[in-house]
């Protein structure tokens, strides 16, 4: 019964929580820049506006691909919240991303294609670490099943601090935060215009945004798994730490500038090797 509730809660609440977090993120960012910022509900207004717009598209397949992106992300998230195999979740997550890339490059648009290429590069940059995180959980808890992670007496983070650091580092890519926001940006006056979302508008863009909210909650769910254990108070700790991590990503977004792709790729791979790889090596030797 419990998994069903979790999955339903995820499917129904994730977009709302995601949008709220986005609203908080905007306010916090604004305060860091000594602005007042928009209201908390601004992401909802934005979505409402996008849905109300007339349907304008560059071709007939983009909506289809974006919808597939959304649905497959929902499947990946549901599997995570149902307590399924973490590796499978990660693999399906990258398949979902593939649909986004296809949607962006479904037309010969120069900026959308550039964004899509950069998105592929970003995937190449973060993919090794996500796999290592799954391996780390396996070594720590003896299982790839998410449901088993929750029943241990200790939090996984004790055994995998390096992986947590690495995951925080690379998640900036997934959250589309500076310095790793190569494939798209919030402002259309930059060198890549809007990157992968250049040719998306109205409903299509709204769907992409909702999918990103689902993805955000999924990733925070994985962070959550680092801290949670069989005690009830660990859930509260995990919530607090997740909020803290989210704040740190926002902070990092505001204090750093976008890097070149080489820096992105090499830094992510080096962090993966040093923080993630060494952590895994130690785990393998101890366990």
């Amino acid at each position, binding site marked *: 019964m419990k998994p069903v509730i979790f999955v339903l809660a995820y499917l129904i609440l994730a977009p709302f929580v995601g949008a709220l977090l986005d609203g908080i993120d905007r306010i916090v960012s604004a305060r860091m820049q000594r602005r007042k910022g928009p209201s908390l509900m601004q992401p909802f207004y934005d979505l409402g506006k996008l849905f109300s717009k007339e349907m304008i598209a560059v*071709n007939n397949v983009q909506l289809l691909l974006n919808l597939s992106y959304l649905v497959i992300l929902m499947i990946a998230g549901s599997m995570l919240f149902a307590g399924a195999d973490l590796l499978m979740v990660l*693999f399906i997550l990258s398949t979902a991303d593939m649909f986004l890339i296809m949607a962006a490059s479904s037309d010969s*648009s120069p*900026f959308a294609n550039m964004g899509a290429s950069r998105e592929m590069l970003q*995937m190449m940059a973060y993919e090794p670490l996500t796999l290592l995180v799954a391996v780390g959980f396996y070594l720590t808890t003896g299982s*790839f099943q998410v449901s088993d992670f929750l029943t241990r007496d200790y939090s996984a983070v004790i055994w995998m601090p390096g992986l947590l650091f690495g995951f925080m580092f690379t998640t900036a890519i997934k959250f589309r935060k500076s310095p790793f926001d190569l494939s798209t940006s919030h402002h259309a006056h930059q060198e890549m215009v809007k990157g992968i979302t250049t040719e998306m508008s109205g409903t299509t863009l709204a769907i992409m945004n909702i999918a990103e909210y689902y993805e955000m909650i999924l990733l925070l769910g994985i962070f959550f798994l680092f801290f949670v254990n069989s005690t009830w108070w660990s859930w509260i700790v995990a919530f607090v730490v997740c909020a803290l991590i989210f704040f740190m990503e926002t902070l990092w977004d505001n204090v750093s500038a976008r890097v070149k792709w080489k820096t992105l790729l090499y830094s992510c791979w080096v962090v993966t090797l040093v923080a993630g790889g060494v952590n895994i090596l130690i785990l393998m030797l101890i366990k």
Partner: protein
Amino acid sequence: MTMIPFLIGIPAVFALIFPFVRDQKARGVIVYTGAGVIMLTTVVFTARWIADGSQVMMLYPETETVDHLMSVGDIALMCLIIYMGAKYRRIVPILLSVAQTALLLYTEFTTEVAAGPHMVVDWFTILMFIIIAFIGGFICIYTVGYMKGYHSHHKDVQDRQPFFFSMLFLFLAAMFGLVLSQNMIWMYFFWEITSVISFLMIGYTRSEEAVNNSFCALWMNLLGGLGFAVAIAWMAKVSGTVQLQDVVSAGAMLPLMCLALAGLTKSAQLPFSTWLLGAMVAPTPSSALLHSATMVKAGVYLLLRISPAFSGNLVGIIVSSIGGFTFIMASMMAIAQNDGKKVLAFSTISNLGLIVGCAGIGAEETVWAAVFLMIFHSVSKSMLFQSVGATENTLGSRDIEDMHGLIIRVPKLAYIMGIGIAGMYLAPFGMLISKWVALKAFVDSGNFVLVLCIAYGSASTMFYWTKWLAKLLCYHIPRETVKDVTRKDEYVSMIFHAATMLLLCLLLPLVAVWVVNPIVQELFGNAKDVISMSVLTTMAIMLVSIFIVPAAMFFISRRSHRELVPIYMNGINEGDNRFFTNSFGEKEHLYLSNWYLRFEFGRRHLRIPSLIIAAAALVLGFCIVIGGAV
């Protein structure tokens, strides 16, 4: 079983017919019949074997006459190599060939070996039969149409089709023999035949490049053959047996290392991957055959057969490290390629690297993953080569850049290519499931380096496939329309492959239970259930993600009304998404190119270091093993 001589004999007989058939139509009919008969015999054989209770069968303990015939065959092959070597003034192949044949004949005539079965039929053999008969058979069917198109494009190449078809069928015959053999001397004979045939096929066009590449393939494979011969001689002298299973049970390091060398050369692992890349000068069907159903699969077949002996020793570590290293380096080098066939070749090398890595660990789970990878790789690689070949005949180029918007220009080929690419790396498809199992198995066996290799390697694999897929699906208005010259028989073959691919994904749990588990059981004596999820859940997820989601989204998105607008070009769009007004006010054509990271991942930078590292590992392994053995 009385049918076994026919399995090897039928393709061989068909190979003998082709030189006498000059008429193109008649030849086509004979190829169709031949392929059909091969598939039919395989099906009948498999069905009868399963009906008999699918027991492991040991066959032919007494084979004096055939043994002598094989010695004659070995000598004939040596003479052929000497002749070709002399004709083109290459000394290395001659030396290698003479050395190994002499060693083998000397061993055969001076050493008494224990009698034993010469052939074995078990699940692994049956699986290889099916791959060889069906993938190989359909490649033969495809070749009929392809070669017509090929020779109308390449007028400068002499038409030697009868020879080509003979070689194709002979290859299948040799593969049947190879996977059946249990006696290593027999296996060696078929092994040498495949080396020589691939040499002859690569040299089909007789251009200078083709000759060079074919000799490169020859000497590398002969080096492996020499390893094979040394292993046989050692086993015969020291253990008094030439049975492959005795190599596993005896576990002596030197023969294992030598057989591993043979397997590594044949499956084109670093430092021997050059020959497979060079093999592309030949017409596409030969690449399809070499990469999917035969040749490289012979290498991994041998390694998987002896993989239980690799478990936890030095040879296993060397083999798995070379495999893992090849997996990551080849996938990185694939990023920098824009030639479709080159990408496919690198991806073959890289995927075989993963299989070899799995074989080198030699645990139940890794072998399970390796067998799975082998099945999926055969189907999708054969399909990809065929579709790239057909595209080349149609567009006149196999450059991935020229495939921009193939979905609009030649939709059927684009769909087939897309399914093939998806099969190579996307989530619900089998390759990924196998990677998942392999990763788990690497962790369980405590092999840290391989875990890193698979983590980084799958990331770079994803990059080069995705950009190709994106290129195919890019919508644009073509500059000129192209006429699809792909013939019916080519489509029959490609559609068969695509359908097999989709069915394999859907029936994945059943394939695991019915085919892969028995193989692991036979190799190790016990089998674990490796897929952790229940059969029905897995199937449901497959079904949902491959068929239902895209189909449902298709119908939902079709209902919405929308207005189509031109794309944004950062300059005035001239109206049809192809031209924009540039800063001089002139009309400029838009050209989009993929991203190849040539300066970072180019072959120029990575090839030499990776060759050196892999060769060093191999030499080091040999030194330690020989030092330990003497």
